[in-house]
């Protein structure tokens, strides 16, 4: 064996490694989060991002222009029932370019889903993605549907806050 072979082999190893490193450079299109989780956590603790149905109905009746209701359910559900004036952006497609530009405008967006959890998660996702002015409608479409009496009259009854205990806790503690 002569030396050139060894040099060649060394060169191949180097090239392979370099190639490996650089091929992995071409990653798919990534949406980087801008807001760090810890900052977001502080924000969640210190301020609310919920809008209760009462306030939402006031907004709607006064026809505030700066608010947009965003329905993140699928089109079928949207066609079935939706809050008047709401825009349908199905959550599956919320990261698509067309909607991203829509979500970028300065208006206050109120997200809702059937209940509030999915909307809340999507809101967190978008906030982490650098969007602001996002709120979540408590109770979601389900609550809205039950409590809407006529076009402009909204009767708030029952519980819309997901985090409110819906049963008597003393029943549980009494059994100890």
């Amino acid at each position, binding site marked *: *064996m002569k030396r050139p*072979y*060894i040099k060649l*082999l*060394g060169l191949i*190893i*180097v090239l392979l490694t370099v190639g490996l*490193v650089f091929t992995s450079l071409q990653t798919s299109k990534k949406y980087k989060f801008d807001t760090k989780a810890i900052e977001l956590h502080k924000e969640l603790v210190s301020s609310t991002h919920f809008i209760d149905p009462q306030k939402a109905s006031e907004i709607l009746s006064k026809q505030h222009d700066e608010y947009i209701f965003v329905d993140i359910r699928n089109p079928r559900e949207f066609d079935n029932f939706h809050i008047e004036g709401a825009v349908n952006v199905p959550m599956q497609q919320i990261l698509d370019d067309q909607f991203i530009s829509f979500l970028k405008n300065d208006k206050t967006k109120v997200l809702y889903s059937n209940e509030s959890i999915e909307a809340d998660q999507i809101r967190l996702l978008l906030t982490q993605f650098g969007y602001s002015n996002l709120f979540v409608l408590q109770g979601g479409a389900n609550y809205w549907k039950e409590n809407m009496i006529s076009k402009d009259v909204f009767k708030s009854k029952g519980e819309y806050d997901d985090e409110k205990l819906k049963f008597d806790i003393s029943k549980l503690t009494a059994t100890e």
Partner: protein
Amino acid sequence: MENKGNKYMNPYLAGLLLGVVLLASFYLTGRGLGASGAMKSVVVSGVDKVSHDYAENSHFYSKYISNDQKPLRSWLVLEVFGVLIGGFISGALSGRLNLKLEKSPKITNRKRIWMAIIGGALFGFGSQLGRGCTSGAALSGMAVMSLAGYVTMMAIFGTAFALAYFFRKNWI
């Protein structure tokens, strides 16, 4: 003439090659290279074979054995196995394959073997205490700028230099 193929690579080029391998290891696995860890795995699994209960109760061995994990099926063991193959390939390509006891002509074979065993034992012991050997602690540690890496490197080479005079017969 037969020694023509016996030449080693230019040290700087070999260093570059080694550095690239090390870098690849960091990039792919997030860890550097190592060797003594694999030897420890061998020892641990040996002790485990001999007496599982003993290994389980020992503070030292029990760290490395758990029921669903075989110490020999680890990253470092496979890596060292690769070193064996890689070294063999290189030796074969450069015509350096032959059974040989390398020593200074001033010492006997017997002495060289004992020296190798004692040196190995010291190195094995030290690598456990120092959490890594020249490759794992010093080389990989230096690449990631870890203080432990630099300290270990200086301790190894410093001691070796300091003691070199006493063992000159072995090598010169």
